[in-house]
């Protein structure tokens, strides 16, 4: 959330918290990543985050083998600006070299050792020139018949890997969201208090 502060930061965190809790009720984030992400997106769309289309599509890599970092860079060409792509490339390269963590990039990753499947999401939040909040949401879910050691630069076989991808930009309609702020905060706050009160410890 680089550069996003104050009310806009609260708007993002409250939106994400509501979407996360509502999606958790319906689906398991780790076992049903596609369904979970779809529900997450649906909630955001209902609280004034505008998105042209939000759905997963099955992607086939053209070569015999591919690495996820190369594929991601290819897929985000139409989603990100050249500057953002350059930053993303830098981040991926830095992670390759250092196995570091960069705050601009948020990765949801799941490692499974029985079957090799997983999902991860890149979720980057920023503002456009006119100060409109934008959340670029990229979610990936894969299923392969080989054991994956490191998801970003593991060499996948195109024939034996099913990859589902969703890349969308959510833009906040601030004038509508302004009317939802209080109800949203009350919902999260009041139900949180009720939840804590009923918690067995």
């Amino acid at each position: 959330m680089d550069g996003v502060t104050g009310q806009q930061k609260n708007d993002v965190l409250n939106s994400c918290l509501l979407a996360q809790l509502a999606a958790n009720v319906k689906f398991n984030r780790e076992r049903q990543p596609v369904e979970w992400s779809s529900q997450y997106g649906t909630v955001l769309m209902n609280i004034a985050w505008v998105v042209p289309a939000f759905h997963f599509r099955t992607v086939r890599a053209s070569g015999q083998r591919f690495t996820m970092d190369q594929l991601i860079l290819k897929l985000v060409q139409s989603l990100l600006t050249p500057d953002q792509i350059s930053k993303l490339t830098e981040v991926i390269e830095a992670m390759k070299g250092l196995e570091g963590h960069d705050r601009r990039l948020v990765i949801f990753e799941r490692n499974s050792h029985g079957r090799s499947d997983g999902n991860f999401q890149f979720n980057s939040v920023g503002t456009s020139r006119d100060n409109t909040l934008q959340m670029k949401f990229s979610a990936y879910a894969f299923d392969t018949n080989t054991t994956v050691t490191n998801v970003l630069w593991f060499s996948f076989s195109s024939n034996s890997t099913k990859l589902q991808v969703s890349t969308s930009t959510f833009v906040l309609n601030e004038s509508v969201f302004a009317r939802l702020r209080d109800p949203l905060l009350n919902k999260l706050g009041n139900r949180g208090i009720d939840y804590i009160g009923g918690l067995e410890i």
Partner: protein
Amino acid sequence: MPATTASKIWDLDVGPEVVRFVALQDAELTGPSAAVVAGSIVAFEPGISEQHRQDVLRSLLLAQLAANAKADRQKDPAGWFTAYRGVLEQVAWVVEASAAAARYQPPFAKFTLDTVVNDAFRPKILAEQLPFVTAAIAAFRSDQNSGAELVFECPSHSGGIGNFQVALAGEEDGAVTLRLAQISFNAPQHVVRLLREEFTKTSQFRVGFLVLSMNEEVFARLRPAIAAKLQDRFDGMVAPLQLP
């Protein structure tokens, strides 16, 4: 009661006295610090406010107590952690990143938990953040027979099985981030002092990772309810670690 008997009772060695973490509340804490909260060790980066330090400790304690009520901490670490994570999400922590628990492959034939914790954090945090975690672990190891040990040992393991967490909390521009390694194990030996135990490759470790951001606006509304829920359980289950 005769005075001599009262004095004898007073002098009896009944183990380490739990140092109340609240004693640090009034202190001006600007450097790194660390604490034990039930079966978790938490390192705080410099600059985190005292309010947020307390928020982190209370959140971690609430999540552990509520998860204990739902699943067997040692025998069902996966179910326990699902409940634990669910509580944190419900009390306004937004999941930024997660890696489900996976089998840990130790690099050496014999190893201690320092290695596991180090390997869990190194790829997930910045190089300059790692020393805060290692300092907290070192402080725990060197502070034998302390209140922290008394608080941590019992919930973190039982016999040869265990389930504990190591966390790093930081604050940047008022935003609190919590990075949390979830570690569970099944070892052939009876573990006595967890951080000083030597394990071999026959021990099976599973490690997961979670990155959470505090939703301050919502959390502020929940603070009184969380404090009321924990009431007097907080003091006895939280102990500071003295960093070198």
